[in-house]
């Protein structure tokens, strides 16, 4: 067990993946000498060379499209997108090509491509630097979508994503990069596409992922003082979702609130609401409620703390749910 920041855990996981398999390549803007704008790839080009840690021209579609070509040649490219809002110039290559290659080749062509995206807000940034685009990817058949929330998960999940033969959108909670926690670099990890119950509780389940896990845990701590027992499930995987763990939890607590930074509509909260209602119609004692950003573009940073879900908004919604 060592303690490291989430960012450092990613760096160590990438290093181990590069060490383990010569087919693993890193591609992206400024990931070489600079080590990426968040320094996640720091030192890797120095140690693995310019051919394995590749600074790319400034063109996301080009980065993703050429990575597809490298994957066809047997490589396992791991792409860094600089900020969430800059993935969209590469959206076509992701949605019409990367996601579909296995399907359209009748299973012949595997696409072991990982796209790392620092996502979410709360860092006082200007526009396009604080977004949560996960619903776009989760809606796309052929992609897998995961989000880490702890250093331990960051370390293992990045390695599992790289080992996966399917394309994985790998979401990193950028505002948690500097938070430290324990990492067991030996322990056999849990499977990539499994959710984790981060805190057990009996009155209600909070379903969340990425940067909001910590916020939900804080809410649960406060609620406990007030006598409410909140269970916090870290989804970890948005596509596919681990419905076994989710159903098991909500079957017990009979109430669920989904918490995410992405805007409310047509997002993860909606899908969870639909699935929970479909499966547990007679079980649920209150509707699935959503604590999310509002349905507006990400605003100027001086109001972001009010725009994003907060402990208070979560607790307010928990109260609403319990009041049913």
């Amino acid at each position, binding site marked *: 067990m060592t303690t490291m920041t989430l960012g450092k855990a990613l760096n160590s996981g990438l290093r181990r993946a590069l060490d383990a398999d010569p087919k693993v*390549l890193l591609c992206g803007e400024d990931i070489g000498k600079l080590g990426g704008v968040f320094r996640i790839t720091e030192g890797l080009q120095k140690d693995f060379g310019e*051919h394995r840690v590749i600074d*790319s*021209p400034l*063109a996301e*579609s*080009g980065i*993703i*499209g*050429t*990575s*597809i*070509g*490298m*994957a*066809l*040649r*047997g*490589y396992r490219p791991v792409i860094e997108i600089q900020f969430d809002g800059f993935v969209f*110039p590469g959206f*076509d*290559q992701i949605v*019409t*090509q990367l996601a579909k290659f*296995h*399907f*359209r*080749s*009748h*299973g*012949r*062509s*595997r*696409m072991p491509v990982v796209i790392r995206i620092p996502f979410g807000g709360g860092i006082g940034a200007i526009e396009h630097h604080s977004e949560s685009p996960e619903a776009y990817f989760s809606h796309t*058949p*052929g992609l*897998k979508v995961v989000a880490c929330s702890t250093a331990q998960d960051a370390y293992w999940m990045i390695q599992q994503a790289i080992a*996966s*033969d*399917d394309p994985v959108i790998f979401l990193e909670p950028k505002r948690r990069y500097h938070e430290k926690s324990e990492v067991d670099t030996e322990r056999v990890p849990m499977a990539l*596409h499994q959710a984790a119950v981060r805190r057990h509780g009996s009155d209600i389940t909070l379903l969340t992922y990425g940067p909001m896990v910590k916020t939900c845990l804080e809410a649960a701590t406060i609620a406990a003082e007030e006598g409410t027992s909140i269970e916090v499930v870290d989804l970890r995987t948005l*596509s*596919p*979702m681990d*419905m*076994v763990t989710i159903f098991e939890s909500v079957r017990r607590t009979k109430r669920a609130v989904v918490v995410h930074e992405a805007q409310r509509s047509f997002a993860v909260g909606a899908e969870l609401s639909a699935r929970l209602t479909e499966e547990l119609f007679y079980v649920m004692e209150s509707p699935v409620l959503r604590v999310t950003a509002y349905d507006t573009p990400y605003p100027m940073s001086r109001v972001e703390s009010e725009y994003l879900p907060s402990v208070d908004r979560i607790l307010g919604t928990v109260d609403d749910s319990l009041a049913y």
Partner: protein
Amino acid sequence: MALDGANDGMVQLLTPEGQLVEHPDFSYQVDDAEAREWLRQMVLGRRFDIEGTALQRQGEIGLWPPLLGQEASQVGAAAAVHPKDMVFPTYREHAIALSLGVEPAEMLSLWRGTRVGDWDSEVRRFGLYTMVIGAQTLHATGYAMGLQLDGMVGNPEPDRNAAVLAFHGDGASSQGDVNEAYVFAASYSAPVVFFCQNNQWAISEPITRQSKIPLYQRARGFGFPGIRVDGNDVFAVKAVTEWAMERARQGQGPAFIEAFTYRMGAHTTSDDPSKYRLAAETEHWKLKDPIERVIAFLRRRNAVDDGFFTQLDQEADDFGAAVRDACKQLTEPDMSEIFDMVYAEQTPWLNQQAEEYASYAESFDVESGSHS
């Protein structure tokens, strides 16, 4: 500058009349057997295309994009592809596909809607048809970067080297992806040759909508050579493509070839060119037919006799019949198979949908096709 290609440094080795001409940089070392084989491939390519159109008319396939007129571009390019090279097509490269050994049935299944992509692209050295204009040029560039990483570029032993041939159309040259492919190819000196079949039209839009200057000039602005070749001259196409591929294999980086040709037919069987172009234009290009000029050449040299043509006609007829047969015998797909095609590692969620579908389908078999 005029775009008719008349005096724009277009490489031509064989005139429309079938006469060899000199070119300072490129030449055709006359080999009659080779020329006959390319003629054969062009004839079969054209026959395949005609069958494709006919099959669509008969309702056997849903759509067909004819290659009529572009046979020399494709067969000439095919002749420059070595076994370790890789080709990334658009959706109209039926003749080069055939030349590389793709089965007609494998191609027809896509248009019949029985399969999505049906050939093994690694085995055929021929990527899947790509409908999203230009997307494949980036895959080609990435594949070429992979060849570099594999140490398959610039070796002293020619056999160890390989390059990528990436097709795109004149219309495609406007897409961001295609220009990004140029950027990446140049930046990494990737062994990729962009082969643009400028067939003068992108559906109804003439090339002048995409570019007011000859397309081959685009490449130079990205830092690699561009060259225009008479796309209806199989000798010239072969020579130029061989040159470009060889320098790529040797590590001299990308090149761009503009094969100046013409789409004699409709864009696809759904298209009606009479809405947007003059018949006179098509008539004019008929005089530049890629097949006729090789016939004239071979005849003039007495390198073919009537027997050759009788035999070739027969081969084409047999081939045509086989194509029609193969099309009609394509197996119908089973809906249940699509669930396993999405991921290499199946998900429980999709498994559940597969089961949902299976039990739904079963209830139907039981109820013999109608809902109760």
